[in-house]
């Protein structure tokens, strides 16, 4: 019998997906060349894999897969994620107010992308820590 709950397995799957997207983005930054980069395909692929994995595991489990404790932990993770998003947005506004602009469109897109990755990463790690602390 597995020691990890359904939600924990999902969090590890999300973490792997996030690392794949992050690694692909880092690869793109290092080998930046004009042309198609297939970001949309990678992100879509990761989401599809995650949904398949979730469906597969949910079907395999005949018991309850989510309860009040999972929802409580998810709320803690969301708080952390929201905090990071708010800090990032305020930082962007400060940059805009102080410098009268945000350099370029690429800079803004990069900033938002990193902010989303960071917020997602913080949420997943915080939830995994919460699960381990209350296991």
């Amino acid at each position, binding site marked *: 019998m597995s020691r990890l*709950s359904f*939600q924990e397995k999902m969090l590890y799957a999300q973490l792997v997906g996030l690392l794949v997207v992050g690694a692909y983005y880092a690869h793109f930054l290092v080998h930046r060349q004009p042309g198609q980069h297939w970001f949309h395909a990678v992100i879509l692929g990761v989401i599809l894999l995650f949904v398949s994995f979730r469906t597969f595991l949910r079907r395999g489990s005949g*018991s309850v897969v989510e*309860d009040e*404790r999972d929802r409580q932990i998810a709320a803690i993770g969301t708080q952390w994620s929201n905090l990071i998003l708010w800090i990032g947005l305020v930082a962007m506004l400060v940059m805009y107010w102080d410098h009268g602009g945000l350099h370029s469109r690429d800079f803004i897109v990069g900033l938002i992308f990193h902010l989303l990755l960071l917020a997602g990463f913080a949420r997943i790690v915080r939830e995994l820590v919460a*699960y381990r602390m209350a296991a």
Partner: protein
Amino acid sequence: MKSAIRNTIRDLRAARSMTQQELADLIFVTRQTVIAIEGDKYSPSLEVAFRIARVFAVPLEQVFQYDPSSGRRK
């Protein structure tokens, strides 16, 4: 972190030869939540607490006891 609420679920379960998974299925939570409750690491909602007492057919205070001298303080 340990909770200030103690419980006797492990003993009640053992007396009835009930597994954690069986109890979890009866009270509609995951087995990991039963493990956390038994280890005093998670305090369940009132609803789940009443469900547990009902499964064992005992009063709530026989399952859960409040011990203010231990656990976190606010």
